[in-house]
């Protein structure tokens, strides 16, 4: 096969792929594609493809053509259902009806979902406790006066000792924590939040809760809340699914006060 002919063939297949893609993505009429005609083109060039790239291009064209055939099948199926209506006829109807008529018709087919949102006494008590322990902004943002210090050099080991630098990077530590969560969950899909973060000391519990909050924020795990049972579960994902910046995030305050920790520890011992 001459290189000129090969080039023409490859361009032809590219055009076929582009056409199929635009029909798939833009929801155009799949019957605009003459499947027999395109199959004949693919068949015509196939015996002469040699390189991996050429064969991949051929496979891609076949793949997109198969998608078009599926769309044609769906189209026929939809036409045979009772939901099928000629879009032009309906569009015409919508254009001729007034806003009031459209709204009245819609109300006859609309059955809105009923749902309630109500704060429980327990959540209210928790929130009050949190509010009482919250320092005023002026105190939280209090700037400490700078002290004049003699400057000197320090080493990484010293910074680690002073807990300014961590021995492992934060992400490494987070991934180790994620593995621990997956291990603790075992065969189940989730674990009670308190059973996971609860530790022998209150300090360790706070540290684990802090790490757990990053697991959730960075998409390594998710929280499941059961307000009626007042239970919170933490569920690890197999792969990280970070939603930061993509989706509206929701903050879930969880109290890990000393009293809560003592209650949990007491319950565990019993």
């Amino acid at each position, binding site marked *: 096969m001459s290189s000129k002919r090969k080039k023409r063939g490859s361009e032809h297949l590219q055009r076929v792929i582009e056409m199929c893609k635009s029909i798939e993505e833009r929801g155009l009429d799949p019957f605009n594609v003459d499947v027999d005609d395109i199959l004949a083109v693919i068949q015509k060039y196939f015996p002469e493809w040699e390189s991996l790239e050429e064969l991949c291009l051929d496979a891609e064209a076949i793949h997109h053509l198969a998608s078009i055939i599926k769309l044609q099948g769906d189209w026929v199926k939809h036409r045979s259902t009772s939901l099928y*209506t000629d879009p032009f006829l309906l*569009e015409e109807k*919508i254009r001729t009806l007034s*806003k009031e008529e459209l709204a009245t018709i819609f*109300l006859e*087919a609309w059955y*809105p979902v009923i749902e309630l949102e109500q704060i429980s006494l327990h959540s209210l008590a928790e929130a009050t406790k949190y509010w009482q322990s919250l320092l005023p902004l002026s105190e939280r943002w209090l700037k400490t006066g700078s002290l004049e210090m003699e400057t000197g050099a320090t080493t990484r080991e010293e910074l680690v000792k002073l807990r300014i630098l961590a021995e492992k990077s934060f992400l490494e530590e987070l991934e180790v924590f994620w593995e621990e969560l997956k291990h603790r969950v075992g065969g189940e899909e989730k674990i009670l939040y308190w059973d996971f973060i609860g530790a022998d000391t209150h300090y360790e519990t706070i540290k684990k809760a802090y790490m757990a909050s990053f697991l959730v924020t960075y998409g390594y795990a998710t929280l499941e809340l059961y307000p009626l049972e007042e239970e919170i579960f933490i569920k690890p994902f197999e792969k990280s699914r970070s939603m930061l910046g993509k989706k509206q995030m929701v903050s879930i305050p969880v109290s890990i006060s000393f009293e809560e920790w003592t209650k949990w520890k007491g319950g565990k011992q019993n």
Partner: protein
Amino acid sequence: MKRKVYYTRKIKRATHLLFYRRHRKPGVKGWELRRKLGSDYSKVLKILDGHLEKLDLQVKTVFEGEKPAGEPTLEQLDKARFYITLRGGLTPKETKMMGWRIDDIAGLATAISYIITKKGKAPREEVEDLLRNKLPGWRVDINMSRYIRSGYLAEDENKQLYLDWRTRAEIDQKALVALLLGTETEASIS
């Protein structure tokens, strides 16, 4: 007597589960109801539905995919989502109390019915053009965002619009199209 107490307790539990939003979306999955109410949860829901009828409410089952032709299997019920919805229709005055203007409802009706006729998927541009016919341009974008935010419509990265979970839960699609075309309908697809 014991039986009556048993079902009264279960109905109360089912009412709490179905009325209060527990997740991001309202409604409860079948498997969740089975876990909380026991394997006879369908019977509990049937009794609850009977009670709700007096209040013009109903327990609505929305199956994953199409509604099964015969009796749904346990697996289909487990995957279905259960909601409490109105049983009868609303009057235009009542919609105002819900924060919906007549323009918003007419726009929603137009968008949904157009997407239905396009096999459940239509370019946003086409739907917006249709809405611009009756609504001022600046309102069209606000309304579309509202429909998407409320879960009536969903949009993909190719700017294609689809019917979302709330449309499947709240709207009798077959009745809507039939009413728009001025024909009578008895059966419901939902």
